[in-house]
């Protein structure tokens, strides 16, 4: 499978994303923010970082870049898009995902490993995560507190669009395990069509044991399997 990994000025997890995809046996290439096409990409990763210096609001400027117009079209055609950290912020700013990410409730930048509970296994981003497996992956953000109004939140819950929630080592959704004050411990969501997802934690930084955890690979394995299913369905 071919992955397109976007590069904005001040993206800094683009190389990690490329490395993770290649390590797991697939191909990936960079797509510069000024490009108007994603080429033959099967899926898109909007990586972490501080696109455009986080000026105005995180993700606010990246949203207007030429490549994001191509991503919108790609998503509209049903293509799979995963936003990580700043990529999640970009996708909410672009209106591809509901809600917004605001300043962490304690105003601190959090750089640590956390646990994720997968609450919706039925998605292209979670399908291969072993049942009941908690994912130990890193976070590194200052503005990762997920906010949405009550109506949006109700829709997310009703549509099983909440994919991951922050939990403790035993899988309990406690306030203490919530690193940034996100509503309902939300760490990641998908859109109602289930082809665009975003999460604040960094699965691409946890795909090999040398980095302390390889739990992040399950998210990529889910994507690979979903793409394979799509390809098989198309061929049939």
């Amino acid at each position: 499978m071919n992955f397109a990994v976007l590069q904005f000025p001040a993206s800094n997890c683009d190389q990690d994303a490329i490395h993770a995809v290649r390590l797991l046996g697939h191909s990936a290439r960079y797509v510069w923010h000024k490009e108007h096409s994603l080429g033959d990409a099967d899926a898109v990763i909007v990586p972490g970082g501080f696109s455009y210096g986080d000026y105005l609001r995180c993700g606010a400027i990246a949203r207007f870049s030429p490549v994001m117009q191509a991503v919108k079209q790609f998503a509209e055609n049903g293509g799979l898009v995963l936003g990580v950290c700043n990529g999640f912020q970009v996708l909410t700013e672009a209106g591809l995902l509901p809600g917004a990410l605001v300043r962490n409730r304690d105003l601190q930048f959090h750089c640590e490993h956390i646990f994720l509970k997968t609450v919706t296994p039925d998605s292209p981003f979670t399908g291969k995560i072993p049942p009941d497996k908690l994912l130990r992956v890193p976070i590194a953000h200052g503005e990762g507190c997920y906010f949405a109004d009550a109506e949006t939140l109700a829709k997310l819950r009703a549509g099983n669009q909440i994919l991951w929630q922050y939990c403790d080592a035993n899988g309990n959704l406690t306030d203490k395990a919530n690193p940034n004050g996100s509503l309902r411990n939300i760490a990641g969501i998908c859109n109602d069509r289930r082809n665009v997802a975003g999460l604040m934690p960094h699965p691409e930084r946890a795909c090999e044991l040398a980095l302390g955890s390889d739990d992040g690979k399950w998210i990529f394995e889910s994507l690979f399997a979903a793409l394979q299913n799509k390809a098989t369905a198309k061929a049939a």
Partner: protein
Amino acid sequence: MKVKIIITPKKAVVDPQGKTVQVALEQMGHQGIKAVHVGKYLEIELDGTDREAARKALDEAAHRFLSNPVIEDYRLEIE
């Protein structure tokens, strides 16, 4: 012509910056502070004199780009 845009966090959004500033002000001895909201202020300098056209154009920009309606409110003043 100058357009001033004041962006503030929506009341429903937790504003930890505002809260922290409020506590600091209280620690300095300021009394009776009910709430502090930390936002953004933009000054946009424009050519031309058509205030209504400027208001319309920048109102759209403020809604679509300069603020995020999910978490922020804004108001616009023309000078």
